[in-house]
């Protein structure tokens, strides 16, 4: 049913309809509305056979999730920012033990200085933790991705983060069609853990691995991650078939003319500037690029839907013959460049692409379509530096010297 919903409410409804056995969270802005809604549903009876556990920290939220998932219950949690870092040790641990917990990350900046607003620093800091990371571009996709995330995570025995921009999505109302409980029941198989704490079949979970076996353990974890690309693509395709709309997948392609999302959009051409981004800024980019296309500019848009596993092949396919790349990055590798830029650079290595990192929207700075249009135009004109900060305020902030942002190649 299509209805106007706050992003957090849509996510909470989708999660509840996935029938989790345990929901455990510690409140942090901008995740709070999601867990408030779930705690309410666990009392009103909308969420049955589910334990909602209030804990004293994010570290315990993830630890409780580890216990409940290991004991064979579908498990959900949500956090953001400092909370994600506070649980970091347990985030890695859940992945190492192959526990398919699904966690919403309401993306928010990391301090200092303390800042509650949106960017991608938090989930980017956990990019090597062994979790799938699926990014939502709008509230519809945020709701849908949770259904896909449970299916993918549980098939693989691997935890999944669904990343949605804090406030921009979590607190924004939009028309959303949350999949019904009946449809999700038909789509999402019941949770059958690959291993669990079972008194009938006792197992030891979480042993110590020495130098003679640790490498192999990590190798197997990596191989499983590579399998994940196919599993994500497969479940996303099944979702599109059943629900009649695209969600998830590895890379989001957009029609060259309408800028609508389209899995069948052709790859970019040699004379295109390709703009790559993830999350809600893709919507702003649609708005920024559409008039440029209408005016005859050769600009294409590609979204990263699955940041982990990083969709190297799908990205290369979408970028096609384009060699002029602009990455709009919502997180910064201090002393290097944007985080997504590094990953894109790794994926496009050997293609001779010129990759520009545009760091935008840190700590909730609004990303204006007009600013994006100007940056993309400069990329077309060959006037964009390797690293730029969008709308950096003049005065008080020294402009970087050319040498600081350009390297010989």
């Amino acid at each position, binding site marked *: 049913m299509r209805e106007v919903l706050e992003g957090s409410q849509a996510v909470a409804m989708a999660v509840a309809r996935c029938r989790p056995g*345990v929901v*455990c969270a510690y409140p942090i802005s901008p995740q709070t509305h999601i867990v408030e809604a779930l705690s309410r549903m666990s009392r009103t009876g909308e969420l049955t056979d589910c*334990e909602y556990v209030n804990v004293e920290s994010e570290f315990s939220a993830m630890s409780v999730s580890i216990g409940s998932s290991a*004991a064979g219950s579908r498990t959900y949690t949500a956090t953001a920012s400092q909370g994600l870092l506070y649980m970091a040790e*347990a985030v890695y641990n859940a992945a190492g033990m192959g526990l398919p917990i699904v966690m919403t990350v309401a993306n928010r900046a990391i301090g200092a200085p303390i800042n509650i607003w949106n960017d991608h620093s938090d989930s980017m800091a956990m990019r090597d933790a062994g979790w799938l990371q699926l990014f939502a571009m709008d509230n519809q996709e945020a709701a849908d991705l949770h259904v896909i995330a449970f299916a993918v995570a549980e098939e693989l025995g691997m935890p999944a983060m669904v990343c949605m921009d804090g406030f921009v999505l979590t607190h924004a109302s939009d028309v959303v069609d949350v999949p019904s409980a009946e449809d999700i029941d038909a789509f999402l198989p019941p949770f059958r853990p690959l291993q669990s*704490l079972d008194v009938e*079949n006792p197992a030891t979970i*979480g*042993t110590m691995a020495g130098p003679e076996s640790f490498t192999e353990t990590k190798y197997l974890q990596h191989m499983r991650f590579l399998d994940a690309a196919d599993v994500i693509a497969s479940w996303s395709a099944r979702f599109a078939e059943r629900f009649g709309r695209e969600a998830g997948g590895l890379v989001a392609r957009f029609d060259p003319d309408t800028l609508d999302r389209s899995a069948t959009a052709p790859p970019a051409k040699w004379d295109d500037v390709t703009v790559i981004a993830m999350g809600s800024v893709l919507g702003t980019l649609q708005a920024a690029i559409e008039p440029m296309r209408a005016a005859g500019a050769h600009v294409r848009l590609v979204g990263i839907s699955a940041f982990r596993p990083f969709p190297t092949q799908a990205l290369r396919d979408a970028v096609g013959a384009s060699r002029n790349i602009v990455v709009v990055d919502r997180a910064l590798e201090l002393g290097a460049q944007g985080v997504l830029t590094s990953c894109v650079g790794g994926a496009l290595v050997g293609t001779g692409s010129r990759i520009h990192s545009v760091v935008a929207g840190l700590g909730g700075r609004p990303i204006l379509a007009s600013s994006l249009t100007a940056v993309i135009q400069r990329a077309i004109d060959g006037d964009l530096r390797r690293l730029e900060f969008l709308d950096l305020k003049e005065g008080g902030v020294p402009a970087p010297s050319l040498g600081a942002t350009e390297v010989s190649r």
Partner: protein
Amino acid sequence: MTTVHIPFMQTGTLAVGGRLLDLEERSVQSQADRPSSLTKGHRACQGCAEALAARWVMDTAVEESGGKLIVANATGCLEVFSTLYPESAWKPPWIHSLFANAAAVATGIASALRAQGRDDVRVLAQGGDGGTVDIGLAAVSGMFERNDDVLYVCYDNQGYMNTGVQRSSATPPTARTATTPAVGKAPGAPYGQGKSMPKIAMAHEIPYVATATVADLRDLESKVRTAMSMHGARYLHVLVPCPVGWGTSAAQSIALSRAAVESGIFPVLEARDGEIVATHPIRERVDVEEYLRPQARFAHLFKPGGEEGLERWRALAEANIRRFRLTEATP
């Protein structure tokens, strides 16, 4: 069975197996079909009281749960010596996640069991003093405060023994550790009383708190039985001498545990809903020296200049005896 004369040594706290007793009065360990939950082949040091205590605790809990027990273990000696891949010394379903989170993992297991309607399966969490009173304190306190249906057992050897004997907040004052060396003006651990987790647990007014030692294994066993007969958050604190960390011979672990009790240094008690309901009265009081002198970590107390430290210990024992009325019989 009244025709058999049972000598005191077979019924009292000093007897372990009790093979001359009626079957139902015997300890779990005296039974041929004992669970052996922590089974042979693990890598604990000789004289490790933690391994001894864990075996008794676990076997009793397994028996009390009808074989339906799930265990969450903190990082530490107990985890390291029992589960080096690809081997495991644990027979019950057992999980190790991290150092600081055994209590929270146990909450997660208990929550999942509730959601699944499995009220027949019980949950036990365990860790050392570091994982309980230091790095894991917040998670333990959270589990207590929510009154989650978990029995948490702390094996207290008063330091970070697994990493090479560093000070924890359960390390008593004056003790020499690798990070509180016995040099300088105030040799050994300079401050603290050895953080009292039982008192912290009692402040949460949870249904059951108890302390025990390996000097009285029947008492330990009976406290596990009591704890397992109840629901909600329960806490058991067991003093476990560590020959490596304490600088003692492997043969002294039991005797030192007894000296800790009989000198007043380690009060043995039970509390319900935050109120002490029973204390183990000192049978034959000994001076703190009997506990301290065999331990190399206190050797500096018996050299010139060590008198002040010894007096500190005597004051600590006196305070315990007064506070917990250890020379009086339990009312």
